[in-house]
């Protein structure tokens, strides 16, 4: 069964926290990875690869550019794993 939106958000927050130390509570749907969370492109790639593994999806590099907020990533993962 595919993960729920809440489960994806929680899982993503854990990955972000592990990579950057940002508290999981700060990783919310409306937050921009770059502007709000100050995540650089190298950390973003690690987060993407870890998310691929955790949720069993593939996020091509071209699509990563379109994931500006946490919510974008949650929606993408939810669709890709549906």
């Amino acid at each position, binding site marked *: 069964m595919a993960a729920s939106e809440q489960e994806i958000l929680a899982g993503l927050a854990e990955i972000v926290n*592990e990579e950057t130390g940002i508290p999981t509570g700060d990783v919310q749907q409306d937050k921009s990875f770059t502007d709000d969370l100050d995540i650089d492109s190298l950390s973003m790639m690690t987060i993407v690869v870890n998310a691929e593994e955790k949720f069993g999806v593939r996020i091509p590099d071209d699509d990563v550019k379109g994931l500006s907020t946490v919510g974008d990533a949650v929606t993408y993962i939810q669709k890709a794993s549906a």
Partner: protein
Amino acid sequence: MTSSRLTDSQRVVVTGLGATTPLGGDVASTWSAMLAGQSGVKVLTEDWVEMLPVHIAAPVAVEPSEILPVPQIKRMDRSGQFALIAAREAWADAGAPEDEPERVGVVIASGIGGVTTLLAAYDTLKERGARRVLPMTVPMLMPNGPAAIVGLELRARAGVHTPVSACSSGAEAIAYAVDMIRSGRADVVTAGGTEAAIHPLPLAGFAAMQALSTRNDEPERASRPYDKGRDGFVLGEGAGIVVLETLEHARARGARIYAEVAGTGISSDAHHMAQPDPVGAGASRAMMQAVQSAGAQPSDVVHINAHATSTPIGDVAEVQAIRRALGDATDGACVSSTKGVTGHLLGAAGAVEAIATILALRDRKAPPTANLEDPDDDVTLDVVRGEPRVLPDGDVLAMNNSFGFGGHNVALAFRAVPA
């Protein structure tokens, strides 16, 4: 003594010390264990040990994960973690000298670089594919990574450098830093060495050279410089970092001064890739340069922290080199090898041992050479064993030797600075 021929803006002094070693997570614990002759060598418990002839090494006493947050740990090679921890200690110990970033430099060496990152990344590539290779892999494995990490931490903009000369790298970093200050490029330079190579590949490589001790059942007795029973070195890891600045700069800010780097000597053998010149010609030239550039005489040298790694050939070659350099004054210098307790920290060795030399001068106390029970007949030096040796007062020199595969020789001469 002709340090007086240098002005106070050319004389370089040590104002901060930092270390993380097999003996302790800081300088104080490292130094007290050295004086007490407490070994940091252990039997390794990793599964891969079984495929190697060597089962022992000297890992750091305090894991970086106990100090640094996980996200930081994940973005740095282990050698970078050690360097950051030691540099923070040294910088705080120096009283965090304030200066324009353009006048602050960093010189941090490594013998092997980010070897554990490189090999782990290659395992990941083979087992899990290119996409799983971390984007930070290259910055983590590059040998200048630790220097860059410390440069970022200290906002150093006068230049960040990484000499690589195998086991003399850490000492070469200090010599380079002295040149950097004397040439006017910087006022304050944080310098030293770091190494994190306890991994089956470097161990297998050194073991293939028959360079490592295989005294697996007696880890604490395995590193035994100058002893008849020595059978190779023990691989250690860690970092040693010092803060250097001009005497003028240190006095202007009221800094506590440990010692002056009175002289430096660098030479190369052009003899063999991995064996010392048997008569120690290159090594003795480095030592003579260090004494001469300190404006001193061989008889001023009262203590030598030797390179002596506990290999059958190297220890004796250094004896020849010391005799050649100091001549009749050789017997006036007591010699210690602290590798008996630390193992061999490769690119960090010269820096950690420079710190030991500086502290020997400060405390007027030379540390014992651990495990020296039955001295080799060819070791015709006054080697400190058993208990620490009291050093004479006065305007004397203490010297640190470091030599590396490739025929690199570095000698550093330290002198106490009157208040």
